[in-house]
């Protein structure tokens, strides 16, 4: 079974996001970028499924500019077998992402699509669900565990108030939550091999997909600054402060 795994290039999560002076967008000029951390978890899980013998090939996909090739090389250096870059010079919305991925799935015919539950830039958390809908495949979102058993994927989902276990008929789309695994580092031998692994490029413009914008960004603002905390020296002092200052008890 082939696994398709998505890898979005986003702002490095360790870097503080800054909004452009005109308030139109987050500044990405000369800023360190990285693979979306949830996608990194998806790549790791695909590799583990391959090591367990459930998956035979891991194909990494990204939609973005030429620099997204670096993100795909990282997936290859982690151990993915080959990569596909859908070349687009602008950031496209989740619906368009789902359409593009559907086109890739139609061509590649994977048995399983693994995605991050969301990208840490837009935080939309929509592409995976919409892709499953368009493909008319089973979906398991926010998964913290996956086991493949023949034609079935047994997944555990992290939902409000607990865990939900689902059996999905393959092919299926799953989206990774934080606790699914801890991604490996790229290994030196795989880094040296990554260059030789195939990386196909397809211009988005040639795919005949409507990627017109449907969402207008009205404004962006920084989150409210958090006040510095204080250390209290006893539980009694904590209770006192909760009563008199925070007024929550």
């Amino acid at each position, binding site marked *: 079974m082939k696994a398709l795994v998505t890898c979005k290039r986003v702002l490095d999560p360790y870097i503080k996001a800054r909004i452009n002076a005109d308030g139109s967008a987050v500044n990405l000029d000369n800023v360190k970028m990285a693979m979306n951390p949830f996608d990194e978890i998806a790549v790791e899980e695909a590799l583990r499924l391959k090591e367990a013998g459930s998956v035979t090939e891991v194909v990494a996909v990204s939609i973005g500019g030429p620099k997204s090739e*670096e993100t795909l090389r*990282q997936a290859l*250096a982690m151990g993915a077998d080959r990569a596909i870059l859908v070349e687009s010079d602008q950031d496209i919305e989740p619906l368009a992402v789902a359409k593009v991925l559907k086109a890739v799935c139609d061509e590649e015919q994977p048995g399983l699509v693994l995605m991050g539950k969301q990208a840490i830039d837009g935080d939309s958390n929509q592409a995976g669900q919409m892709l499953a809908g368009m493909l008319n495949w089973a979906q398991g979102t926010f998964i913290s565990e996956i086991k493949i058993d023949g034609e079935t994927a047994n997944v555990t989902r992290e939902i409000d108030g607990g865990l939900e276990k689902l059996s999905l008929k393959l092919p299926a789309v799953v989206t990774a939550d934080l606790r699914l695994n801890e991604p490996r580092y*790229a290994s*030196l031998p795989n*880094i040296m091999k*990554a*260059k030789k692994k195939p990386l196909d490029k397809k211009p988005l413009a040639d795919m005949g997909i409507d990627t017109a914008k449907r969402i207008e960004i009205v404004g962006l603002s920084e989150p409210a600054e958090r006040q510095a905390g204080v250390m209290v020296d006893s539980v009694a002092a904590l209770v006192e402060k909760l009563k008199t200052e925070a007024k929550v008890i």
Partner: protein
Amino acid sequence: MMHLGLSDEQQLIADTVREFVRNEIHPHEAQVDRSGEVPEELGRHLTQTVQSMGFAGFNFPEEVGGGGLDQVSQTLVERELGRGSYALTTFFPRPSGILMACEGEQRERYLLPAVKGDKFDALALTEPNAGSDVRGMQCYAKPDGDDWIVNGSKHFISHANLADFVIVFIATGEEQTSRGPRKLITCFLVDRGTPGFSIDKGYNSVSHRGYHNCILSFDDCRLPSSQILGELHRGFDIANQWLFGTRLAVAANCVGRARECFERTLPYTVEREQFGQSIGKFQGVSFKLADMITEIDAAEWLTLAAAWRVDQGLEANREIASAKLYATEMLARVTDEAIQIHGGMGLMDDLPFERYWRDARVERIWDGTSEIQRHIISRDLLRPLES
């Protein structure tokens, strides 16, 4: 054509090591600096992680199980490791290049396990009365049949506390030269636990707390000739052939550390307000930033260019000395200015800057003092002009 960019592989190597330092090293460094110790389990975990990443022995050729990286790539790894605490990055296995001189059975016993990260090495040159004047060493070995009987001591031996074996330079005789008698030096491989050989805790250093230096003592220690690394009396030949790597590594470590220090300082100059505006808007601070980044970039190019010369098979002794000299002195200035920008808070151990500043001090001393580097550089310039 002049090409100054990194290859995709080199970029990935640097990014991977940087991520390793960020995830595995940074969270522990303040505690390690305060306690002066690395918990054994943490050290083991770090080494195992590096082994699983296939980065152990990255500085060795593939035919002996190493990473087979060119000198520029090795320098990039060292640069990124420089961002982290020395006490912790020492568990990133990269044995002394001099082990390439191992022959026959020595390869199985020392070279191969060291490259894998299964055995740790240390290198011992310095003695209480032999610092820059290395040949003035008093540690000596007397022949006894096919064996050697060693007496004397070594000090400032970095991370020998972790070493399974130590590469030790010992005087094995004297020759007459036109400038008077000169000691002949031989390099030996000495296992921890060899009778008559002890490794003891050294001094408490202001720099790199948690990274220990040790005192080695030899008391009628018997070493068979099979423990000689390279040839008898030719210890400095192999040292000269392989030890350039450590000076290049020090330069690269300093560049990485300065970059880390700068990247942690820059946002503060935007966030910190005095007199109603960001302090970065005051020329007194902004010009410091300009000087710091210029010096960091200059040191980086000097270091990478020296590594590039090694890869091209060009003479690089002077260039490596220049890189080591400039990068170590640059780090002193950059860490000092970072503290100045942070003001009083820069001196407190809640922030890493006082540690960076303390750590920087040793860089101008170990692996050849700044004065020795200047000597190497000027000798290289003047010798061809002297008759």
